[in-house]
Every structure is written in C-alpha cells, then in structure tokens.
C-alpha cells in the first residue's frame, strides 16, 4: 500500500505545465483540422511568449463558451451568429482574419452529376433531384449553418427532405467518415477534406462558386461582462493575427501544393 501511495504521489508531481502566459480560445473543428494551428501556435508562443490553448468545438458551442466567459476569445466562421454575439455585448468586436472555401465531396461515380453544375445551388438541386444520399453536419456549426443557407438558396427545405438527407450531428471529420462509409455527398471545407485520411472512393466534385467562400473572424470576449477574461492577452493575440507575420504564414500554408487560406484582415481603423 505504501508503494502505491508513493507512486501515486510521484505521478501527481510530474508533468506540471510550463508556460509564461496562457489564454483559451475556442476554434472551429474545420480550422483545427486544416492544420494551420500547428503552424501559427508555435510562432505565437515564440513571438508573444503566449500559450494559446485551443478548444476545438463547433461554432455553436464556441459561441456558447464565449457567452459563458469560459474562453478569452473565439475564432469562428458564421457571420450571423457572430453579429448576434457582438450585439449582445458578449464580444467587444468582430475582426475578419482570413477566408477559405467550402467544397462539395461525393462518390467518384457522381450519380447526381454535380461536377458539371454551373453553380453551388444548381449542384444541390441536382442532388435533391437524384435523391442521392447527402450527409449533413447537423450540429449547428458554422459549416452546418452555411449548408442550410445554401439549401435555402436552392429552394429546398432540409426539414422536409427525406431519407436521403442524413444529419449526423457530428464534427467535420466524423461526418466525412460517415459519408465515406455510405458513399454519400457532403459539403466540407477544403482544408478538412485535404487533411482527411480516410477518403475511400470519395472525390472533390464541385468548388469555386463565390457563395462558398468562408470568412473566419476573431472575437475577443467582453471583459465588461466577464471580469476574469484575459482581455489584454486577447488583444495582443489579435494584433499578432492581423500582422504581416501572420499574413505570410497564413497565405503560405499549403497542403499537397494547394493554398488553403487567404489572409484578408484590414489594418486597424
């Protein structure tokens, strides 16, 4: 028994964290799956002596974490939800950082022939007409909200779509796994798709329509509402995210030779 207690004590003492300053930021799964964080975070740690702890969740949950004051800032991509967040004074402001784009993925055989569609809405209409299986995130994330608005543009109501429309209520990776298993169509952000390791016989079928652009914005949590948030650190991080260093890293980030993100933060106004 004494050995046990001793070894427990040893385990408890080891592995204490070492960092100058830390802050918590909620980010979306699509941002994290892109792998860009692995490039930015070490540089942030070196430049600012700041350890940014990432909570990887859907946009819906990220916004809830910000509202509750459980994180110091959020980096998400759902403009409507972001503006509500700022309007409710949960965040001090909204700063656009960069964008990437969404793509339609589906079985290589492409039964609904979306590869030849002239627009994103037309592609969705073809899927609906063919009643081809379509996997939806169904988790209130930014990607999910975007998908719903596209269905809306296509004149379809996901609530009344039938068997072939499958909301899985999961993150991007899990939803892609489901689509790969069922040979279904799915909308994904380009980064998650390129980094995804279980492609099966899925292929990128449609991309490039301007409505598929996906704007990421940075929102510091309002210190007036939550006195404990590290607002000064959140502002320091924002200054770094809109700096030339960040621009070079973001624009220069590629997977398989493809550029993923376009930096578009405007200089301070």
């Amino acid at each position, binding site marked *: 028994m004494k*050995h046990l207690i001793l070894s427990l004590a040893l385990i*408890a003492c080891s592995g204490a964290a070492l960092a100058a300053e830390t802050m918590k930021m909620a980010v979306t799964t699509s941002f994290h799956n892109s792998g860009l964080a692995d490039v930015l975070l070490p540089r942030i740690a070196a430049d600012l002596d700041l350890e940014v702890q990432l*909570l990887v969740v859907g946009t819906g949950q990220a916004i809830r974490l910000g509202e*509750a004051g459980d994180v110091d800032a959020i980096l998400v991509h759902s403009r409507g939800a972001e503006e509500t967040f700022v309007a409710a004074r949960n965040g001090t402001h909204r700063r656009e950082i960069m964008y990437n784009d969404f793509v339609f993925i589906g079985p290589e055989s492409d039964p609904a022939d979306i590869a030849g569609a002239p627009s994103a809405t037309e592609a969705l209409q073809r899927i609906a007409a063919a009643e081809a299986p379509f996997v939806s995130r169904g988790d209130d994330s930014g990607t999910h909200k975007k998908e719903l608005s596209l269905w809306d543009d296509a004149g379809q109501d996901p609530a009344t779509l039938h068997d072939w429309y499958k909301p899985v209520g999961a993150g*991007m*990776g899990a939803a892609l796994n489901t689509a790969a298993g069922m040979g279904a169509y799915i909308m994904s952000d380009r980064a998650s798709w390129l980094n995804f390791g279980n492609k099966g016989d899925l292929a990128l079928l449609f991309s490039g329509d301007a409505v598929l652009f996906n704007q990421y914005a940075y929102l510091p949590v309002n210190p007036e509402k939550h006195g404990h948030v590290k607002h000064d650190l959140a502002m320091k991080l924002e200054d770094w995210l809109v700096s030339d260093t960040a621009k070079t890293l973001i624009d220069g980030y590629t997977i398989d030779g493809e550029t993923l993100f376009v930096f578009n933060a405007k200089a301070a106004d």
Partner: protein
Amino acid sequence: MVDIWSGLVQAAWLVGTLDAELLEIALRSLKVTLSALVIASLIALPLAALLAVRRFRFRRTVIAVLNALMGLPPVVVGLVVYVLLSRSGPLGVLGLLFTPTAMVIAQVVIIVPLIASIAHQSIRDLWQEYHDLLISMNVTQGQKIRTLLWDSRRALLTAALAGFGRGIGEVGAIMIVGGNIDHATRVLTTAIALETGKGNFALALALGFVLIALAIAVNLAIHALSRTEREGRW
C-alpha cells in the same frame, strides 16, 4: 484489417521510440484516473461499509439508487459538471473548467457509484458472517467498519480496479469538461476521438492499443504491489 495491422505497428513504434507526446498524454491519462480513483475510493469504500452495518430508514432506496447510478451516462455527468464549473455557473469563480482537476471531478462522480456498489455487495456478505461475533464483542460502529474494510480488502481491490477501468476508458465526460486541449487536458481517449475524427484510423488504433496495454499494466502492477493471487497470504 490493414488499419488494425498498421495500428499495431504504429503503436509498437510509438512505444519503442518513447514518443514524447504519447508519453505526455499517457501520463496525464494515468494521473487523472488514478487521482479520481483514490478520491472515489476514499468516498465509496467507507460509504459501502456504512451501508452494510447501519440500519436506517431509506437504506434500501439508497442502495438501489447507488446500483442504478452505476450506469450513469458519462456524457450527462460531463454536461452537469460543465454547467456547474462554467464561469456562468455556481462554481465558476474557481476557474476549474478545462483543467485536469475538472476531469478528476467528473470521473469521481462516474466511478463512486460503481466502486460503492461492488464493494457493498462483498462487505454485506462478510457482515453476515461477522455480525454475531462483532456484536458480541460490543465494538463501536467505527471499529466494525474498519474490520470489515480490512478483511474484505481483496474484494475491495476488485471494486477499485473496476472503477479504474471505467475511468481510464471514459471519453464522454472528460471531453466536455476537459476540452481536449493540447498539452493541457488531452488524454489518450480524447486523442483517440480526435484522430478518428481526422480519419487517421491507424494512429487512433495505435493510441487505443497503448491505452489497453496501459490498463493491463496498471492492473498487474497493483496486483503485484498488493501481493494478491499468491498462496497463503489471504
């Protein structure tokens, strides 16, 4: 099948090269679950003994509820602990959310009913045996509890190991209250969920094999240290 094989190979490689990141998350897994186990045992074992020796009005109800709580869904526990520890929750001032401490709290809640139920079962049987003897010696309640706990230590070890098993393999609760933060609250199970999400099945499986090996190693170590399963000791 290819995935399972490459998972095994990758697991062997990660362990063989003492991969720093693997070591970190494996140690954190152990630290969180062993801390939870110690705290949960300190609560559950005396509780189990008390339930065996004390007669009070709602004793049956308490035991039934305890048994039912063995099946507590971790994700619900996680959610409740999250709401309590959230900055906008009643315990928010402590700032414990997304720390290993929060993960320990959630795991304690999950494994206390399990340990208490299993322990109560064996202590009750022993109590039937000891009842007349202990009553005739006119010992105090505290002495009864201590005697019962000590004499059923082998069964209690099984109860504790069951609790450890449930804790180390649990992902639903610690994902919510820990947040799976790299270098802060990432443990083996949440890392497996993350890699599965990325479609890296081989790496996810490798971590899974490491987790299973770790659980077996801990069980063997505890048996060795407490010298069970040896002749003439019990």
